C-alpha cells in the first residue's frame, strides 16, 4: 500500500477536485442520440449474439413507454437524451499480453490516480478489471483465478465466452422493465464486469474494478453481474474517479448480485465522481440501480458504500431476502458538500423465513447540499421470525445544508421485529475547540470528527479501501468551514 504522508498532506491541502484531467486516448463513438439504430450499433460493434440484441431492443422499447421518476428529493435539470453519446470505446488495437502493450496514455491515467495496474498486481494482491470509458482494456490475475474456476472478466467477454451464464442471470435481479434508468442501461450498456464464483469456492483475492468516465459528453452505462454459486464467497470492490468536466455527465449503472444457497457476497464501493465545482456547475449525475438476491437459504449479501462524489446521486443498493435464514446488510456513508444532492438508501425485502437485515446509514451534509436517506424495510407475510435493525444518523456542518430521512417500514406478520433509530446532530463547537486546542486546524479537526462518526461503516471496508475512504471524507469536506 502506498502511503507517502507528504503526498497525502499535499492532497488534503488542495481543495479542488484532483482527478480532473482528460487523457488523450483515441475514442470510437456511436452517433449522438438514442434510437433503435444506436442500440443495434452498440450490439453489432460488440459482436453480440442475437439474444443480447433482443434483450437490448426489448429494454429500449419499454424505456420509451416510461416517464422520468420524480419522487426523489432531488432537483434534476432536464436531460436531453438525444444530445448524449451513448457509446464510446477506446479504439481497439489488439489483445494485450502484458502491460507493455497497453496504451501508455492509459497507464499514465492510472498512475495519476495512484492505482497503477502493476502496483495493484504486485502490492495489493488485487485482480483488477479496469474499465476506461466503456470497454475493458486490461484484465489481470485471470489465470490465477481460473485455477479456482472463478470467472472474472468484462461483461463483453462474458457475453462472448459464457453466453449461457449471461443469458441465465442477466436481468434476473434487475429486469429490463425495472425502472427508467435501469431500462435505459439495459438498452445501451457498454461494458462492465462479470464475476462467477463456482460452488464451494472462496475467492482468494479481493476483486476490484475501477470505473472511469473519460470521453466528453459520453453517458456511461456500466453493467455488472456477480453470481456466487452454492457455498461460494467473494468480496468485490468498486471504486470511481472521473475527470473534471463542465458539462454534466450521465451515469446510469446496473449491478446485479445473485447469492445461491450458503453463498456470501460482500460488495464495497467508494464513489468519487466529479461533484461539480463550489458553485454547483458541472458534475456527474449518478442514477444507479444496485440489487442483490439471496436466492438460497443461509445466503448473505452485504453492501458497503462511501459516497462522496457526483452532483446528483440516486442510488439504493438493495437485498431481496428470498432464501430462509438469509442475511442482508447495508452500510453507508454519504457526504454532500457545496451544491451536491444525494438521495440514497436501501431496500430490504424479506420474503424467506428467519431472514435478517441490518441498515447503518451515516449522512454528512455541508455547504448548501441536500442529503437524504430513503429506505424501505418490507417483511412479507411468509417471512416469519424476521428481523431488521436500522440506524440512520445525520450530521450537519453549518446551517445552510439539509438532511432528510424517509424510512418506509411494512411488516405483514406478527412474529417479526423491526427496530429503527435515527439521530440528527451537528459537530459541536466544544469538539472543534478541543481538537484545535491540540494544534489541529478546523479542517483536519472536522476530518477527524467525521471519520470517527463514520467509523462503524468504514470498518466494514477492505483495508486498502478504508484508507482511501478516510482521505476522501476529509477532502470532500474541505471548504465546509468558516
Amino acid at each position, binding site marked *: 500500500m502506498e502511503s507517502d504522508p507528504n503526498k497525502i498532506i499535499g492532497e488534503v491541502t488542495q481543495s479542488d477536485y484532483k482527478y480532473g484531467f482528460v487523457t488523450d486516448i483515441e475514442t470510437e463513438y456511436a452517433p449522438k442520440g438514442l434510437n433503435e439504430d444506436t442500440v443495434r450499433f452498440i450490439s453489432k460493434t460488440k459482436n453480440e449474439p442475437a439474444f443480447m440484441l433482443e434483450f437490448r431492443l426489448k429494454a429500449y422499447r419499454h424505456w420509451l413507454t416510461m416517464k422520468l421518476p420524480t419522487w426523489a428529493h432531488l432537483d434534476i435539470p432536464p436531460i436531453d437524451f438525444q444530445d448524449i453519446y451513448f457509446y464510446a470505446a477506446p479504439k481497439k488495437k489488439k489483445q494485450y499480453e502484458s502491460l507493455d502493450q497497453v496504451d501508455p496514455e492509459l497507464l499514465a491515467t492510472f498512475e495519476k490516480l495512484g492505482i497503477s495496474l502493476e502496483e495493484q498486481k504486485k502490492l495489493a494482491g488485487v485482480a483488477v478489471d479496469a474499465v476506461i470509458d466503456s470497454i475493458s482494456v486490461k484484465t489481470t490475475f485471470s489465470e490465477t483465478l481460473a485455477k479456482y474456476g472463478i470467472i472474472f472478466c468484462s461483461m463483453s467477454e462474458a457475453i462472448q465466452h459464457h453466453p449461457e451464464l449471461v443469458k441465465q442471470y442477466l436481468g434476473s435481479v434487475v429486469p429490463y422493465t425495472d425502472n427508467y434508468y435501469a431500462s435505459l442501461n439495459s438498452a445501451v450498456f457498454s461494458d462492465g464486469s462479470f464475476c462467477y464464483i463456482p460452488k464451494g469456492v472462496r475467492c482468494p483475492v479481493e476483486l476490484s474494478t475501477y470505473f472511469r468516465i473519460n470521453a466528453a459528453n459520453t453517458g456511461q452505462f456500466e453493467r455488472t453481474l456477480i453470481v456466487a454459486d452454492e457455498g461460494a464467497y467473494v468480496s468485490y470492490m468498486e471504486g470511481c474517479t472521473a475527470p473534471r468536466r463542465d458539462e454534466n455527465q450521465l451515469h446510469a449503472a446496473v449491478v446485479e448480485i445473485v447469492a445461491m444457497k450458503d453463498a456470501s457476497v460482500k460488495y464495497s464501493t467508494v464513489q468519487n465522481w466529479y461533484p461539480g465545482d463550489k458553485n454547483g456547475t458541472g458534475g456527474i449525475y449518478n442514477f444507479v440501480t444496485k440489487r442483490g438476491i439471496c436466492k438460497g437459504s443461509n445466503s448473505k449479501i452485504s453492501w458497503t458504500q462511501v459516497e462522496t462524489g457526483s452532483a446528483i446521486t440516486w442510488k439504493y443498493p438493495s437485498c431481496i431476502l428470498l432464501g430462509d435464514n438469509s442475511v442482508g446488510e447495508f452500510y453507508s456513508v454519504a457526504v454532500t458538500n457545496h451544491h451536491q444532492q444525494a438521495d440514497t438508501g436501501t431496500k430490504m425485502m424479506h420474503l424467506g423465513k428467519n431472514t435478517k437485515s441490518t441498515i447503518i446509514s451515516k449522512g454528512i451534509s455541508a455547504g448548501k447540499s441536500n442529503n437524504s436517506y430513503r429506505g424501505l424495510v418490507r417483511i412479507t407475510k411468509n417471512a416469519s421470525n424476521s428481523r431488521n435493525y436500522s440506524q440512520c444518523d445525520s450530521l450537519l456542518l453549518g446551517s445552510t445544508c439539509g438532511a432528510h430521512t424517509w424510512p418506509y417500514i411494512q411488516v405483514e406478520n406478527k412474529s417479526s421485529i423491526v427496530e429503527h433509530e435515527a439521530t440528527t446532530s451537528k459537530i459541536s463547537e466544544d469538539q472543534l475547540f*478541543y481538537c*484545535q*486546542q491540540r494544534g489541529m486546524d478546523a479542517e483536519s479537526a472536522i476530518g*477527524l470528527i467525521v471519520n470517527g462518526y463514520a467509523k462503524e461503516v468504514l470498518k466494514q471496508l477492505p483495508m486498502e479501501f478504508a484508507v482511501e475512504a478516510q482521505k476522501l471524507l476529509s477532502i470532500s469536506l474541505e471548504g465546509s468551514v468558516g
Partner: protein
Amino acid sequence: MLLSIKNLHASINGKEILKGIDLDINQGEVHAIMGPNGTGKSTLASVIAGREVFDVTEGEIFYKNKNLLRLAVEERAREGIFLGFQYPVEIPGVSITNFMRTAVNELRKYKGLDPLSGGAFLKLMEEKKELVELTSNLANRSVNEGFSGGEKKKNEIFQMAMLEPTLAILDETDSGLDIDALRVVANGVNKLRTKENAFLVITHYQRLLDYIIPDFVHVLFEGKIVKSGTKELALELEEKGYDWIRKEQQDNGKAE
C-alpha cells in the same frame, strides 16, 4: 517573560467576566489561580487558549513576545500553549491513538519536522503512558467516550506529556478526583516541570497544591486578581475560606 497579561477584560454575550487581569509568568514557574466558583477562572483559561465565544474588550496578552490575541486557537497550541480541560469533550469513533497522532504530527509539521512513523509514534505513546502512570488501555478507546472523571483527567495529563507544551494551563484538573487520581495527575505535572516551561494551575481547593507546589498563588475574585502571594497564601485561604476574601473586598469597597 513567557506570558504577560495586561488589564485584560473579556465578556460573553455582552456580560463582562474578566474585569482587568494583570499577570506575568516566567519560564520555570508554577502559578496557581484560586477563587470561588463563578469568578472567571475558567474564562481566563479559555481566553488564553483563544476560545472564540469570549470577546476580549480591552487589554492585551503577550506570549513569547508575540501578540497572542492575534493568533488562532491552533496557532496558540502549536506555539506551545496547552489547556487541560475541566470537562473534556467526547469524540465518538476517534481513538486516542489516532487523535494524538494527528495532534503530534500537526505540531511536528509546524516545527518543520517529518511526521512520526507509526512505530516511533507508538513507542512515544508507551513512554509517555509510563511517565504519567497511565496503566489502563485508554489509548484504544474513543477520545473521552465513556471515561470516568478520573480517566478523563489522566488522559488530559497524558496528552500534555505527549505535546510537551511551554505553557500548560490546567483548568480545575483536580475537581472530581479521588486522592489516588489526584496523586497521579500531580506526579505527571511534577515530572514534566522543567526550567523552560511554566504551569498555570487553576483550582478551587488547596489540596492539589499539597502535591504541586506553586511558586505563586493568585486569588481571582469577581473578575480581578485581588491577592497574590506564595504558597502560604493558599494555606491561609484554606484556613479562612473564601468568605475572608469576600469580606475584605466589601470592606475595601466601603473604604473607597
